[in-house]
C-alpha cells in the first residue's frame, strides 16, 4: 500500500518549494524593474523616464507575471492560505496592486500620450514605489501570522451560515490587524532592496557614457549601504520578536545559519567589488544572489509552516489527489517558463541609452 499521507506531504512540500521559487523569480526580476521605477521618480525629465521604461519594455510583463504564477500556485496548491491571506492583507495588497496596475497602464499609455505624458511617468514611478512597499508590509504582516478561528468571523452572520463550510478556519481579525511597526519596517526594507536592485539593473543596462548610468552608479552606492543597514536591523528585529525565529537560529543547527550568513556577506562583497570595477552585469548577478540566499533562509526559517504559527504546509495543502493532479500537469511547465523567460531576457539584453525612449511599438 502507498502511504498516502506521506505522498501528500511530499507533494505539498514540493509545491511549497516551487512557490518559494516563483516568489524568488518575482522578487529578483521584477524587483529590479520596480527599483528602476523608484529611481525614475527622481528622473530629470520625461525622456529619462521613457528611456528607463524602454530598457525593460520587452521583459517587464513576463517578470511581473511570476507574481501571478505565485498567486496561481497558492490558489492551486494551498487554497486555504489563498482564501485567508487576502482578508488579512487587504489593505497592503490593495496598495501593492494599485502600484502594479498603475505601472502596467503607464507603460502602455506613456508612449502614446502627449500632454498627459508627465502624469503617466509619475504614475509609473509612484506605482513602482507603492508596489514594493505594499508587498513588503504584507510580507512582514505574514511573518506575524494570521489571526484565525473556526466558523464565521463576524457574529450574526454565523447563524445564517450553513455548517457545511465551517470546518475550515477563517480569518477573524480586523482590517488593520496587519499594521505593526515591524510590518511598516519590512515595507521600507522592501523599497530599499528594490532600490538597490534597480540601481544595479540600470548600471547593467545603460551605456557608460549615459547620464542615467552615471547617476545610477551613485544611487547604487548609497543604496548598498542602506541595504546593509536594513538587513542587520531586520535580522535583529525578527530574532527579538519571533520566538520561532530565535528557536531555529540558535537551535542545534546554529552553525548552518552562521555559514549561510558568511555566504551572504561574501556575495554582497563580490557584488560591491564588481560594481566598483564597473563589471555591471556581474554586480547585478551577485546582488541577485544575495536576494536568493536571504529568501531561502527566510523560507527555511519558516519551515514547516507556510504561514508562521498559522498554517503548516500540510494543513494548508489541497487534498492528496488534487495536489497530485496539480503536480502531474504543472511541474513540467516550470523549466519551460524559466526557459522562455531567460530567452526573452537574452533577446533584450543589449545596453541602451537615454535617447532610446519607449515610443510606441
Amino acid at each position: 500500500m502507498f502511504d498516502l499521507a506521506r505522498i501528500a506531504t511530499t507533494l505539498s512540500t514540493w509545491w511549497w518549494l516551487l512557490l518559494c521559487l516563483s516568489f524568488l523569480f518575482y522578487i529578483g526580476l521584477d524587483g529590479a524593474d520596480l527599483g528602476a521605477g523608484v529611481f525614475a521618480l527622481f528622473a530629470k525629465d520625461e525622456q529619462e523616464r521613457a528611456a528607463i521604461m524602454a530598457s525593460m519594455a520587452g521583459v517587464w510583463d513576463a517578470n511581473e507575471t511570476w507574481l501571478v504564477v505565485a498567486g496561481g500556485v497558492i490558489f492551486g496548491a494551498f487554497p486555504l492560505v489563498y482564501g485567508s491571506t487576502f482578508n488579512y492583507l487587504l489593505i497592503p495588497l490593495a496598495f501593492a496592486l494599485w502600484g502594479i496596475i498603475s505601472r502596467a497602464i503607464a507603460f502602455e499609455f506613456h508612449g502614446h500620450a502627449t500632454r498627459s505624458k508627465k502624469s503617466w511617468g509619475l504614475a509609473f514611478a509612484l506605482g513602482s514605489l507603492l508596489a514594493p512597499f505594499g508587498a513588503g508590509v504584507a510580507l512582514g504582516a505574514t511573518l506575524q501570522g494570521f489571526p484565525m478561528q473556526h466558523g464565521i468571523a463576524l457574529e450574526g452572520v454565523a447563524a445564517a451560515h450553513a455548517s457545511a463550510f465551517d470546518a475550515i478556519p477563517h480569518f477573524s481579525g480586523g482590517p488593520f490587524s496587519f499594521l505593526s511597526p515591524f510590518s511598516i519596517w519590512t515595507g521600507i526594507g522592501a523599497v530599499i532592496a528594490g532600490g538597490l536592485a534597480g540601481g544595479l539593473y540600470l548600471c547593467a543596462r545603460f551605456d557608460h557614457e549615459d547620464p542615467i548610468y552615471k547617476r545610477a552608479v551613485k544611487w547604487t552606492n548609497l543604496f548598498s549601504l542602506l541595504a546593509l543597514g536594513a538587513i542587520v536591523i531586520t535580522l535583529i528585529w525578527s530574532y527579538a520578536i519571533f520566538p520561532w525565529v530565535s528557536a531555529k537560529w540558535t537551535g542545534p543547527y546554529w552553525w548552518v545559519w552562521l555559514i549561510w550568513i558568511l555566504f551572504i556577506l561574501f556575495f554582497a562583497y563580490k557584488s560591491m567589488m564588481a560594481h566598483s570595477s564597473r563589471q555591471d552585469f556581474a554586480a547585478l548577478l551577485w546582488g541577485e544572489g544575495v536576494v536568493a540566499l536571504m529568501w531561502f533562509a527566510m523560507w527555511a526559517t519558516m519551515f514547516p509552516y507556510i504561514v508562521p504559527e498559522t498554517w503548516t504546509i500540510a494543513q494548508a495543502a489541497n487534498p492528496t489527489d488534487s495536489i497530485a493532479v496539480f503536480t502531474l500537469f504543472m511541474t513540467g511547465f516550470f523549466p519551460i517558463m524559466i526557459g522562455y523567460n531567460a530567452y526573452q531576457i537574452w533577446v533584450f539584453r543589449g545596453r541602451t541609452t537615454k535617447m532610446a525612449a519607449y515610443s510606441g511599438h
Partner: protein
Amino acid sequence: MHILYTPLTIGMAWILFALEVAWLRTGNERWYRLERFFEKIFIINFGAGVATGVTMEMAFGILYGPFSQAVGPFFGNILGFETITAFMYEAGFIGLMIFGWGKIGKGMHLFSTFNVGLSSTLSAFWILVANSWMQTPDGIFLKHGLFEVKNWWSAIFNENCIWGFPHMWVATIELALFVTVGASAWFILKNRNADLFTKILRPALLALLIVTPAQIWLGDGLGRTVAQTQPTSLAAMEGHYRTYLPDGKVDTGWHIIAFPNAQNTGNVFAITIPHVLSMLETHTMNGVVPGMDQFPAKDRPDVWVPFYSFRIMVTIGFFLFFVALWGNWLRLTGKLNATDLRKRPWFLRTVVFSAFLPYLAVWCGWWTREVGRQPWLVNGLMRTYQGVSHMTVGQEVFWWVGYIIFELTVWSGSWYFFSRVIAKGTDGIPHSDTLFHQDTGGKDGGEKAGGGLVKPTFAKPTLDKNV
C-alpha cells in the same frame, strides 16, 4: 470589466497570426502593415487586460475568501493551471512579439505570435472551465467543507463547459473580426489608406459569414444545456414563471417584453408569443419548460437582468449575422473595392457601429450567466452568502472605491489611446525591409541585433513629440 479587454486580445491574436502568415507566404507588404497596425490596438487591450486580470485574481481572495478555500481542490487547481500554462506563457511571448521586431528572426517571431494566440485561447479555456463548473458542478463531493474532486474528467468537461467554451471562444473571434472590419471601414470612410484596409475586409467578411451563424448555433446549444442543468437560470432569462397555464395546458409562451413583479412571483406585464419557448428549448411544439413556480422563492434568481441582457445579446447576434450577409453580398456583386464602398457610406457606418456591438453582447452574455446562477455561487451547492468574505463596511467601501476608480481609469484610458492609435493610422509604420538586416559582421560599428550594444535596426526609436 476584465471581460471587456480579454476577448479582443484572444481573438485578435489569431488575426495577427493569420496576417503574419499571409505576409510571410505572399511577401505582400500590405499584410505586414495591417499586422503592425492592429498590433497596436492589441497591445493597449493587452495591458488593460493584464491589469484588470491581476485585480480579478486578487478579488477572488479578497471578496470570496471562504469560497476560495472551499473550492480550492478543483477551482484553485484550474486557476493555477491557467496562470501557469496560459498567463505566464502569454506574457513570455508577448514581449517577443511586440518588441522582438528586428531582434529575432522571422520564424521565431511567427512562433511567438502563434504562441500568444495559443496561450490566450488556453487561458480562455481554463477560465471557462472554472466558471462553467460553478454553473454545473460535476465530478466533486463535499467533504470537511471542501469540494474534493471525484472525477477530473467530468469536472473539467462539465456540461456547461462543452457548449460554453466554444460559445465564448467564437465570441472572441467574432468580436476581434468586427473590431478589425469596423476600424477598416472607418478608414475607408475617411478615405485614408482605403485600398489597404479594403484588402483586409475581404477575408474578414468571409470569416464572419462562417463565424456569425456558428455563434448563433452555439448559443442555442448552450441555451438548451442551461435549460437542462439550470432551469431557474433559464426561467429567469425568459421571464418564465408558470409551467402550466390555469387551464392545465403547458405554458409554451415566449415573452418579447416582460415586467416581473416585485415579489418575483410573476409578470406584471408581458407580450407573449405561444409555442416559441417550447420550440427554442425542447425543439418541440408543446415541450414542458419548468417555470419559476417549480422552485422555492429562495432559489429564484432576479429576472430583470438576465431577461433583458439575454435579449440584447441575441438581438446583436442576429444583427451581426445580417451585417456579415450584407458585406458578402457586396463582395459577390463586386462592390467590395474602395471606390464602390465609399459610395455606400451607410454600409461602412453600420460596420463601424457593429464594432461596438459584440462588446455589448459579450457583456450582456456574461451578466445573464452570472445573475442567472444566483442565489448560488456554486450552483446547488454553495450559496453566494456562504462564499463571500465577511468584511466591515469600511473595508468594502475602501475596496470598491479603489476598484471602481481604477477600472474607470483603465477603461477611459484604453478608449482614449485606442482612438489615438486609429487616428494616427498606418503612416508611421516602417517598411518591413528595414527590420531584418543582413548581418554585416559589425562593420558599421554596431554588433548584430540583440547582442551587445544595440544599434536601432529600424525606425530609430526616439521620443516622438508629435504623436
